[in-house]
């Protein structure tokens, strides 16, 4: 059974204080490791897909990395607008069905 575990559950940072979110996973036949951002009352918004160990993707203050067992979402010099829940998911099977973690709720304060 595919499993995704995210840590920490919640993280509070001051503006400019860099940190990392962790996503550990077990999956048969990985068809991508996905990061999404979800704002309250909204649907998940796609951020990154990583396919193989060693791969890295960047977007503004966010950088996602992948190993064979886990992925990290690094947030550099965060701003209050980065406050959201960050979801990690793994895709498997021919239809790339997603298994999600429970998310990390990030709050960035001034």
């Amino acid at each position, binding site marked *: 059974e595919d499993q995704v575990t995210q840590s920490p559950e919640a993280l509070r940072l001051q503006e400019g204080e860099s940190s990392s979110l962790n996503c550990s996973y077990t999956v048969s036949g990985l068809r991508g490791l996905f990061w999404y951002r979800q704002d309250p009352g909204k649907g998940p918004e796609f951020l990154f897909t990583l396919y193989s160990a060693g791969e890295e993707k960047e977007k503004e203050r966010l950088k996602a990395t992948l190993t064979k067992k886990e992925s990290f979402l690094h947030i550099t010099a965060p701003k209050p607008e980065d406050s959201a829940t960050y979801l990690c998911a793994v*895709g498997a099977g021919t239809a*790339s069905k997603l298994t999600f973690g429970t998310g990390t709720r990030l709050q960035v304060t001034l």
Partner: protein
Amino acid sequence: NAGVTQTPKFRILKIGQSMTLQCTQDMNHNYMYWYRQDPGMGLKLIYYSVGAGITDKGEVPNGYNVSRSTTEDFPLRLELAAPSQTSVYFCASRDPTSGNEQYFGPGTRLTVT
């Protein structure tokens, strides 16, 4: 493009009532999915479809039905609503020719009382 749209945004049902959650996408994506999201539980896959006329069960299909008569639409039917179906429902779509990422709609918040 509007992307993935869902209606209604909110709905309150009484136990035993039925309803259909609508999902439409204008991106010509063959693959579509229905998830439910409960607090602290993560999103769970209910049903998915790889094209018009083809549907299959996900992780939590009991109490739900789907149909896919067109590429654009993927409605989710709740028969005999139960309190356990109180949740936020998200529809998503994917173009398998351009990547494995799924694009989500804004969700429907359903309460069954």
